[in-house]
């Protein structure tokens, strides 16, 4: 009896083993994928590194060897659903598509305008996908953007990822995106990239760059906020990392450049009677990185003047961006609604039905708590003689 049980146990181990074993040699480790809308079809594209061409590969394995910059492979397929497109894609590949290491998901502009819930549903439903994947919008075709050759990084997806993390405090992930869609009174946003030309001397090359802020309402792209408003919008979203402002002091032609060491924004709704206002409070500290004026900045009143000028600049930039988003896109990416919901649930219940109509008219005010941390290692500007 005992022996029979042992035999059963051993055969259970030996006969059923290795059923989902996969060697890394058989995986296509997808780093970046792109979804476009092609008529009524979805076009799904993936990009993965050819590991045999990467540095670090040793031993035999083919005599040709790849040219530099050719260590990445892009393939694409289309179908009427995302999953079927992926299945079509898999038919062209000898290695299993492996999405657990996807870092960036690119959504084409047309696709984004059509609505992204199909993509996000697919991501959240399939456990191999990471919902921490960064999501971004490609102006035009996502496939084309993905195919842009990148010289700076070993893997093109890394380029997107690194740009995102340098520009934003916490780049928008699929999880953030889904969260914003599901939460009442807040709409999703993310960065929009496009392909631009970079020129040094007479050599021109394509590269990728941040183009603006993609503003969504529910799961649909409403439009792309122009790059000139990007800083203001990111400041209000508490997403801008260490901004730099160059301001002219009143009554002076010379400018002073301030580098923020840190800046954060807080949103609070103010309800007085029937009126609802939103208040952004910016707090942070900066250091002086360039001083072209003739004043020593260490004096108290001088630093107050600079701080005032910077506050005015921030107010100007942010209010322009907020106005644009409120009136042109009518998308509540700042979460005015959800802030109201959290702080004054009673008020929110009354207005939630017609929030999208009310939202563009909500007045916004700004408060500041900004100070100069230090002026750098110089007190007087270098062109001023300290002993006149």
């Amino acid at each position: 009896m005992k022996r029979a049980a042992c035999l059963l146990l051993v055969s259970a181990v030996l006969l059923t083993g290795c059923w989902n074993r996969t060697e890394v040699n058989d995986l296509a480790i997808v780093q970046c994928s792109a979804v476009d809308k092609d008529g009524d079809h979805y076009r799904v594209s993936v990009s993965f590194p050819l590991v045999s061409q990467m540095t670090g590969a040793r031993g035999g394995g083919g005599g040709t060897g790849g040219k530099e910059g050719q260590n990445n492979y892009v393939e694409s397929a289309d179908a009427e659903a995302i999953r079927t497109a992926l299945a079509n894609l898999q038919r062209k590949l000898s290695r299993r598509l492996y999405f657990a290491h996807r870092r960036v998901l690119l959504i084409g502009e047309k696709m984004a305008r059509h609505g992204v819930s199909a993509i996000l549903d697919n991501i959240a439903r399939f456990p191999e996908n990471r919902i921490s994947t960064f999501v971004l919008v490609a102006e035009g075709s996502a496939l084309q953007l993905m195919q842009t050759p990148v010289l700076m990084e070993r893997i093109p997806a890394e380029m997107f990822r690194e740009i995102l993390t340098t520009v934003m405090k916490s780049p928008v992930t699929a999880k953030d995106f889904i969260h914003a869609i599901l939460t009442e009174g807040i709409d999703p946003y993310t960065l929009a990239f496009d392909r631009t030309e970079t020129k040094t001397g007479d050599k021109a090359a394509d590269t990728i760059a941040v183009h603006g802020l993609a503003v969504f309402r529910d799961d649909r792209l409403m439009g792309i906020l122009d790059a000139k408003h990007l800083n203001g919008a990111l400041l209000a979203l508490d997403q801008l990392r260490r901004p730099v402002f160059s301001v002219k002091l009143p009554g002076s032609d010379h400018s002073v450049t301030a580098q923020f060491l840190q800046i954060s924004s807080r949103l609070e709704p103010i309800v007085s009677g029937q009126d609802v206002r939103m208040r952004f409070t910016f707090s942070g500290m900066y250091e002086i990185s360039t001083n072209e004026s003739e004043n020593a900045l260490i004096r108290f009143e001088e630093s107050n003047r600079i701080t005032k000028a910077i506050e005015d600049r921030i107010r100007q930039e942010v209010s322009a961006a907020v106005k644009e988003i409120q009136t042109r896109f009518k998308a509540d990416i700042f979460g005015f609604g959800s802030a109201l919901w959290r702080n004054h649930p009673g008020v929110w219940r009354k207005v939630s039905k017609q929030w999208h109509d009310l939202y563009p008219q909500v007045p916004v005010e700004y408060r500041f708590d900004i100070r100069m941390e230090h002026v750098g290692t110089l007190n007087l500007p270098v062109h001023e003689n300290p002993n006149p």
Partner: protein
Amino acid sequence: MTTPIRKQLDANRRWLKERLDGNFDVVIQDIEHRGKTTAFVLYIEGMADSEAISDHVMAPLMRQEWNHISASQKSETGDFETVLDAVFAGNGAVFFEDADKAVIVNVRGGTRRGVEEPNSEAVIRGPREGFNENLRTNTALVRFKIKSPKLKMESFTIGTETRTQVVLAYMDNLIDPGVLREVRERIRKINIDGILESGYIEESIEDDTFSPFPQFQYTERPDTAAAQLLEGRFAIFVDGSPFVLMAPVTLMQLLQASEDYYDRFMIGSMIRILRIVFMLLALYLPGVYVAIMTYHQDMIPTNLLLSIAAAREAIPFPTIVEALILEVSFEALREASIRLPRTIGQAVSILGALVVGQAAVEAGIVSAPMVIIVSLTGIASFSIPRFNLAITMRMLRFPMMIMAGIFGLLGIVVGMVLITTHLSRLRSFGVPYLSGLAPASPKDHHDLFFRLSWRKQTSRNHAIAHRNRKRMGGPSNWGPEGSWP
């Protein structure tokens, strides 16, 4: 059954000749006086000290000064069996005409290795002397450390043919009487023809023979043996073996080295934590690597995965096969370098590690990350201070690797559960093997993961010395702390 010694010298000689025939090394030396044989001396060439025999036994006998036999120990006996036992232990025996007793004189000698630095347990700081093959030297080395009548040493003779002397040593006031009774009983029950190493005793009296884990600690160092005696453990000395057995043993104790206690306590504690980490690495690292590489590629940081994938690109074997090939070759290499003469051992390690390792990676037979994992595992297992525990970990990592290859991390977890279950069931002379951890005893934490300063080590290990836990009295140590408890 005993045979009495008879009064006639000739009869005695005849009896002995009959028994000892065919042994060229047995010497029967007659003492003649006025043409008459008055006595003879029996000893074994090589085991007895021939100078002592001639100076202190033969010379007085020649002068007919019977009482002037000067040896450090003399005793009389009336039966042949006692005489033979004594003679084969290296003593001499003197038979006299007209006496039905023989005098046994201690003239033990013979050449044996001197007290040298122990090979298997080297230290930077600490005593340099080590046990050798001579039982008397070994017991004396411990006595030099513990000069107390409370240190008891009981002698047993085991082995129907080898008649090996085995000594059970313990501190009378510290040892658990139950453990003492049990070990005496178990030693008495050993019925074997020969004991050539302490390993024979170990396997004959341990609690669980089918456990891969050692239930005795062995040492070549008198200071380690003395320290364990002072913890309330017993020690077993076996004649002819430089290894002294100690029990009851716990897992955490096997991770302690004598130097933990000699170096500054912070350093001792840090190294102890390092050892625990490395013990776990030695057991699990190759298994975890195999599991992650074949089932859970999502757990590796992306850039690392790409590097490993690039290195593995040309490898023809699955990861588990690659791992088994390398681990088995590593074990073979280790075994070869131990058995070979030291000079050739060097060549083997160069050939094995440098030539074969390097060439195998370059030829694309195994991947460089795998070589790193196997080397790291090897180093980890060498950092366990007790060889018997290290080799257990090395053995158990093979089933772990196979479990990982079949079931992935699930297999590792199952293996972990099995090992932990076994360990928590295992006992060494009634003391739970995981004592300190399970059952957890916070009072032992001054000497478990960390080794606290000697000023704080006021009590002995609670699981073992529960009769007499107090190591120190009041605040007798000088110190600026003054008020420490």
